[in-house]
């Protein structure tokens, strides 16, 4: 599904964010990406949706080399990926349904199909009854669930998420993680960068630990500890 081969990222200011990383992530994997702040987790994720381009190395997503991919093809790559970030990134002047529909509108899906798909996605995250509400009328956890609905509405192959529970209390975090597990069970690959030790240790999924841009641990059924 995703092959990262000898990837190095050096920023223009000379900072080496990733250093000769090689990882393979299979279809249906649930991968936790852990490590201290500044370890390169976000850069790692950004490379997967071509927000950053490696200085060296190769990244294959579903068999396609996304490093050499022309810029004009990047939107089509992203349509197969769901992206959920820490700060909810919802449009405050649009309703829940309109926010979720955004991912379908850009693909040019008709209104009839959009309505059905929104309903399905919102039901999946348990928010179908709040489809007409605005993000400001929702709790943090609900806002994050709207983001997840928007990310999954296109049935992505991979869900990339950076600290999705970073701004949420433990109970809400558990709910969000439960939601990710359900999505994963339907076959979507999930790559999640997190500092949430409790959740990582509880779920015992594959754990990739990054430190100073290098993978220091890659364990199936792993734990959070990386030092």
């Amino acid at each position, binding site marked *: 599904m995703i092959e990262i081969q000898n990837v190095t990222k050096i920023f223009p200011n000379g900072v080496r964010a990733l250093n000769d990383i090689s990882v393979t992530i299979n279809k249906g994997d649930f991968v936790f990406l852990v490590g201290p702040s500044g370890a390169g987790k976000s850069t790692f994720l950004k490379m997967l*949706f071509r927000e950053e381009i490696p200085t060296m190395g190769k990244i294959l997503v579903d068999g396609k080399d996304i490093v050499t991919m022309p810029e004009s093809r990047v939107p089509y*790559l992203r*349509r197969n990926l769901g*992206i959920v970030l820490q700060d909810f*990134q919802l449009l405050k002047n649009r309703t829940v349904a309109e926010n979720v529909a*955004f991912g379908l509108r850009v693909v040019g899906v008709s209104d009839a199909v959009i309505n059905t798909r929104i309903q399905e996605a919102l039901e999946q995250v348990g928010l179908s009854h709040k489809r007409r509400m605005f993000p400001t009328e929702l709790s943090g956890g609900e806002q994050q669930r709207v983001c997840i609905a928007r990310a999954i509405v296109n049935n992505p192959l991979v869900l990339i998420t950076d600290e999705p529970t970073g701004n949420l209390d433990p109970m809400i975090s558990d709910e969000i993680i439960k939601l990710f597990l359900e999505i994963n069970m339907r076959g979507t690959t999930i790559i999640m960068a997190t500092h949430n030790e409790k959740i990582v240790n509880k779920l015992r999924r594959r754990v990739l630990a990054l430190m100073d841009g290098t993978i220091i641990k890659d364990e199936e059924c792993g734990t959070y500890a990386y030092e």
Partner: protein
Amino acid sequence: MSLAKLSFFLTEALTNLRRSGITTFITVSTVAISLVIMGAFLFTTMNLEAFLLQMQSEAMVTVYLKNDTLLAEAHTFNMRLADMPEVADSLVVSSEDAVRELFSDPDDKRLLQIGVTPEDNPLPTTIRIKLKNPDLLKSIVDKVKLEPLVDNLSYGEDLFKQFEGMSGLLWYVSLSVVVLLGCSSMFIVFNTVRMTLFMRREEIIIMKLVGATDWFVRGPFIIEGLVQGLIGSVIATIILLSSYHLVVGKFAELIPFFGIGITFEQLFKLTAKLFMMGLILGVVGSLLSLRDIRKFSSSVN
């Protein structure tokens, strides 16, 4: 482009225009005012051109014969002139007829007060030539001035050249006005779209995250520019067309040629051109502003 995308673009563009009402109002007003000024300049230039054309089509050459020319000689010469291919009509005006004509004009009666009388006639016999085509002016002048009976020729050369020079100058001024106002309107549209881009940065980032192409992101902004240009053009067209008779009436009192020779069809064509110009200003202004759209979408966390 699918209907769903077009509908999305239109909805987005119109919603945003409504939300940023003041900036939209300023942009639309600027475009409208610029187009009205451009239209006024082009209209004046067209009037002057029409007047010149009319002047040319009525071009008349007056041939002054030498003082000792007999009337019979003048008539013989006139017959020769009438046979020339350039000449549409020619008429001998004897010195007596000329002076009668002169004193029939009430304005020139004051000549009597300064001592010029019909008895003391200073006017020579003349032949007035009307040309078939104003372009033949030079050719006939060259031929006639060599004739032995001819003392002098007059064909309003200086006035003609003055008007021609004025028309040329006015075209340059109009062109400069069109370019300058066009650029400034485009700059205003450019800035409005730029401001909107900053205001909607988050939206653009999300659009890009969910897989929107650059052109998809640009779509609503281009339509916004187009709508602003369109509304500006409509306002300018209404102002120009509705004030046409009023302005022509007022100006015609001051400038005799104003309103001459401009048909409603020409006016309509002019406003159609301004209309197109408004649309182009809106779209080009937006496109220039959107050329580096990626700058606004590459800052995910």
